[in-house]
């Protein structure tokens, strides 16, 4: 059994008080390794809440630097961080929240040639990315590696999330292939209410902690969508597709694919 220090008992007391979590649940959280892909609108609240919760090892993947236009929603970064690599800024904030956390930084973007190698070290993966090529890459890599992950997407006033657990519906069961470049706008093109990133990111952080502790029911085989204009939340039941090109009975996708980023995305990406 893990030997909690006085400081830790105090720091995590509100988790330990929860009947469903308790000392045992907190031990699981301290032992957990979680990879957060993207230190942006979703990755920021996810990494901050996981750090505060005491997740022992957090990996962060992002090849970008902090831009002034990020600060409207990416609350892990602050004004003096503009120009800094996002992974460095994120690591500093995590250390300030909870110095006990071991943080691994990957100052790079996830690609077909590095994805499996990076995710293999973690128990759970959180998708906090802003584009479809990487969302499909994360899904494919996690399905192939048998890793659970939380999917998240936001746009304007809306958010969407589900939790993949091996053997259950994957992103390709719902959406077979990425949309053509520029067919669906990203936040950098269409805008987003900053607090929406917090709403969805904290749902993803909660799902991660539920997975780690085994508490409650995950958003597995369920797609949760919400519209903040009306505050309507909707859970749609989804099922694993027998003919899913990735996790179905006769998969046609057997290796990772680097989909084309749209020119527009790449331009926005360099901002």
């Amino acid at each position, binding site marked *: 059994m893990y030997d909690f220090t006085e400081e830790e008992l105090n720091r995590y007391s509100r988790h330990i008080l929860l009947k469903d979590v308790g000392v045992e649940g907190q031990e699981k959280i301290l032992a957990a390794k979680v990879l957060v892909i*993207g230190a*942006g*609108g*979703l*990755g920021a609240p996810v990494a901050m809440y996981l750090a505060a919760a005491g997740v022992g090892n957090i990996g962060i993947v992002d090849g*970008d630097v902090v831009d002034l236009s*990020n600060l409207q*929603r990416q609350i892990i970064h602050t004004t003096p961080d503009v120009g800094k690599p996002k992974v460095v800024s994120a690591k500093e904030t995590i250390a300030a929240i909870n110095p006990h956390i071991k943080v691994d930084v990957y100052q790079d973007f996830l690609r077909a040639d590095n994805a499996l190698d990076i995710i293999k070290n973690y128990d759970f993966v959180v*998708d*906090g*990315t*802003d*584009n*479809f090529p990487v*969302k499909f890459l994360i899904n494919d890599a996690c399905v192939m590696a048998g890793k659970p992950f939380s999917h*998240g*997407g*936001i*746009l304007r006033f*809306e*958010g*969407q999330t589900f939790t993949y657990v091996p053997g259950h519906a994957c992103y390709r*069961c*719902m*959406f*077979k292939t990425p*949309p053509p470049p520029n*067919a*669906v*706008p*990203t*936040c*950098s093109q*269409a805008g*987003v209410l900053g607090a929406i*990133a917090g709403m969805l990111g904290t749902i993803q952080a909660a799902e991660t902690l539920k997975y780690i502790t085994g508490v409650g029911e995950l958003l597995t085989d369920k*797609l949760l*969508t919400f519209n903040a204009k009306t505050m309507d939340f*909707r859970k*749609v*039941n*989804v*099922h694993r*597709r027998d*003919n899913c090109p990735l996790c179905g009975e006769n998969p046609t996708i057997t290796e990772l694919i680097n989909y084309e980023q749209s020119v527009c995305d790449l331009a*926005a*990406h360099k901002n």
Partner: protein
Amino acid sequence: MATITVNGEKQEVALPITVSGLIKQNNVAEPEMVSVQVNEEFVEREDFDTKTFNDGDTVDFLYFMGGGCR
């Protein structure tokens, strides 16, 4: 007339109606982008023009949502 539930809300439709017809009737902005479930079973895109609905069916339109965002 028949009643089907579209994204959680009841709708009156005249039968017969196909998935493509329902997409059109609901003014879905990017019809080529939407994933469609009928009674919790996904419908293949190539069947959108032939798959028809029955009274009481439940339909979900699922949309791509991509931002994270940087």
